[in-house]
Structures are given as structure tokens and as C-alpha cells.
């Protein structure tokens, strides 16, 4: 079923994703900071500020606490790109989900391997975040399978109506955990964008210079992919649906920025319970209804 052609398409898509996602993600991050600043009554940095930040980090002195940290971060980055490639090649959504999880695990390893107490606190919290969002993300893939009849993302183009019509409960559940995945308050427990909310700097405490630049770019790519997962709910056979999907993704991103600016960080217990309850109530019930009725 999956031959050489699939592999070739995935590789090409990964390369295209590796070029385009950082550009889109960088602009989104810039927009985020600009909108956040306006919400707080400030002017805010230039739109390209995230780009300047990363260029500066790349120019910094190259130092790290050990040899393996950089390797783990690179692995996390590569698997994020692969996950994007699989998704945009029309490939298996479940595989894309698993690749992102693998990337998250490498990121956690990168923090743990430094043996820094602050990074370890961040890594432990990141693990809790993965625990919180993973059930819902898996339910999202399962729900997609039930609604579209296939795990392949290319399957949406042969549908008469977007999958959101049948799995809107799954979408609500997924939007809840999207806040965790985008590292937005109230669930930015392992690594906050905002200063003074953090024990030193969470997962990235020991990362610096070019390694930190890699983490930033990886985060941009992740954001693009997660918004694309959301957009997938709104695509069907009609080409106009692609425009609808992009608009919905942007609206969702705006909603996340709004939430980010209006909620203080919660304790991890609240995040874990909240995410699991929402996953069960919205995702679980939605899927159970579709599966048994």
C-alpha cells in the first residue's frame, strides 16, 4: 500500500515544510507578540522581532553543558519536521501525532540530560504536559478516522462535508489541549514566553545560543503544524474549504492569544484533570456516539 512513491512524496513534503513552516511560524510568533502587546496597552516589538531574536541567538558564543543536549534538540527538531512532512504529504495523521510525541520526548531528554535542577523541574513539567494532552490528541486522530474513514489526511478532499460536522465534540476537546501544545497560559507550565512566570526558564534553562535558536524555530514549526491539525477539521472536497480552514486556523490562534493574555497559570493538577475530563467528556462521548449508534 505504501510504496517508494509515498516515501518520496513524504521526503519532498518534509523539505517544503522545513522551508515554509519557519517563515509562517515566525510571522505568527511576531503577530502574537504584537497583538499581546496591544492587549496590554503597549506598542510592542516589530513584526520580525522573533526573526531578530533567532538571528542573534545564532550569532552567540556556542557553548553547552554536554555533548548530548544539542543532539537531542536536533532530533526533536528533525522529528517535528518529519511530522509536518507526513501531514502535508497527505499521509497518516496518527503517524504525524506519534512523530510529534517522539519529538516532545527528545525535547524532555534534552532537558534531563543537563542534570540541572531547574531544567529537570521544567522537564518533569513538560512530561506532565505530554501526559495531559496526549489522550485528547490520540482521540482526535481516532475521531478523524471514524469521520473520514481513513487516517490519511488526503482523505478529506473526497468528503462531501468537513469532518467537524460529525466530530465537533472532538474539536472542542482538541482546542482545549491546543492551549497546552502552543505553550500558552494558563497551561504554559514547562516553558513560558513571559518573564517572571518561570523557575529560571523551565525546559530551556541550560540551552543557549544556537541550541536555543533551534528550539525557537522548532516551536514555530510546531505551532504551524498544530494549527494545520485544527484546520483539517474544516476541509472537504470543495477547494474554497482551504480558505475557510486557513481563516479558522487564524481565528483559533487569535483565541489562544486572547486566552494567553487573560488567564494566570494554573497548577499542574488542574491542567491534568481538566485536560483528561475534557478529553473524556467531549472526545470520548463524541467518539462513543459515532461508534455505537
Amino acid at each position, binding site marked *: 500500500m505504501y510504496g517508494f512513491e509515498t516515501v518520496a512524496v513524504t521526503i519532498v513534503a518534509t523539505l517544503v515544510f522545513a522551508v515554509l513552516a519557519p517563515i509562517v511560524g515566525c510571522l505568527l510568533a511576531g503577530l502574537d507578540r504584537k497583538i499581546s502587546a496591544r492587549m496590554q496597552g*503597549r506598542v510592542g516589538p516589530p513584526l520580525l*522581532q522573533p526573526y531578530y531574536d533567532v538571528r542573534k541567538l545564532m550569532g552567540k558564543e556556542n557553548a553547552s553543558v554536554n555533548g548530548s543536549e544539542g543532539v537531542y534538540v536536533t532530533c526533536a527538531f528533525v522529528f517535528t519536521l518529519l511530522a509536518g512532512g507526513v501531514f502535508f504529504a497527505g499521509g497518516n495523521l496518527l503517524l504525524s501525532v506519534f512523530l510529534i510525541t517522539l519529538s516532545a520526548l527528545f525535547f524532555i531528554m534534552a532537558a534531563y540530560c543537563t542534570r540541572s535542577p531547574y531544567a529537570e523541574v521544567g522537564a518533569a513539567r513538560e512530561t506532565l504536559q505530554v501526559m495531559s494532552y496526549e489522550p485528547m490528541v490520540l482521540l482526535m486522530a481516532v475521531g478523524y478516522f471514524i469521520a473520514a474513514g481513513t487516517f490519511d489526511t488526503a482523505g478529506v478532499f473526497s468528503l462531501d462535508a468537513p469532518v467537524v460536522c460529525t466530530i465537533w465534540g472532538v474539536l472542542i476537546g482538541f482546542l482545549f489541549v491546543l492551549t497546552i501544545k502552543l505553550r500558552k497560559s494558563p497551561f504554559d507550565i514547562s516553558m513560558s514566553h513571559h*518573564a517572571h512566570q518561570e523557575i529560571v526558564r523551565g525546559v530551556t534553562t541550560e540551552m543557549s545560543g544556537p541550541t536555543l535558536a533551534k528550539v525557537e524555530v522548532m516551536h514555530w514549526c510546531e505551532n504551524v503544524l498544530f494549527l494545520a491539525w485544527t484546520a483539517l477539521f474544516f476541509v472537504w472536497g470543495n477547494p474554497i474549504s482551504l480558505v475557510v480552514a486557513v481563516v479558522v486556523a487564524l481565528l483559533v490562534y487569535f483565541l489562544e492569544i486572547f486566552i494567553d493574555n487573560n488567564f494566570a497559570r494554573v497548577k499542574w493538577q488542574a491542567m491534568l484533570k481538566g485536560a483528561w475530563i475534557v478529553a473524556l467528556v467531549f472526545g470520548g462521548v463524541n467518539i462513543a456516539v459515532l461508534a455505537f449508534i
Partner: protein
Amino acid sequence: MSYATKSPWVIHYDASSCNGCDIEVLAALCPGYDVERFGIINTGNPKHADIFLVTGSVNERNIHVVKEIYDQMLEPKVVIACGICACSGGIFHDCYNVIGGVDQAIPVDVYAPGCAVRPEAIIDAVVQGLGILEEKAKALDAKKKEGE
């Protein structure tokens, strides 16, 4: 302008300040002055920071901390002494435990006097520090190329 000057991330350490200068440093970072316009972000992590803002004089107890933070910061980096105590020891200069200004512990690039130092003076000092940061970034680039 190089990228080093377009996103100066700041770390702030209160050596033995009376908190007057600390409040002014934080005031400069608040929406009123909105230094994020210039890409300035307050980080809590020396490994991420480019500019080291020190308030208060250096004494026997904290000189190791000041040195440690400075050592953990990666090149190119700039040190700004905020307030007269950080510049020279100020009114505490002859206290039995006070060593003097921050320059007794680490090399200081810009001095911003005042008691307390005004937010405008801090912003001016940071802007002046950016010039030095750019020079240091260029020197680092040249060194990197030499290494290759």
C-alpha cells in the same frame, strides 16, 4: 546594525541595592516605557541574556554571585551598573562589608548613576550598551572566522 543589537535580552541582579534602583529597572520594563519596542526582554536566565543590569554595591557576600552570573553569560555580553551604588558604592562606600562598585568584581561597560537611577537613564545606558554590544559581536565574528 547587527542582529545582536536588535534583540538585547536583559538579566537583572540586585547586588545589595536598597530596592530603589530595582523598582526603576522594573519600571523601565513595564508598559509605561515599553522597552519591548526595542526587542528588550527581561530574562531570568544568565545563559539567555546579553545585557547584565546590576543594581547596588558589591559586598563580601555577593561578589561570588555577581561573578558567577557574569561567567554564565555567553559572549557577546555587556554589563551596565545601574545607580550610584553600583557605580562606586554610593553612600554605602565606607561600610565595613562593602567592597565598592560592580567594577570591583566584573568589567563594567556602561555606568548609569542616580539615586535612584531614572528609567530614562537606564534606557539611555542600555542604548549606549548596544553600541558596545555591536562592537563585541563583530569581534566575536572575526574570532570565529579566524578559528575556521
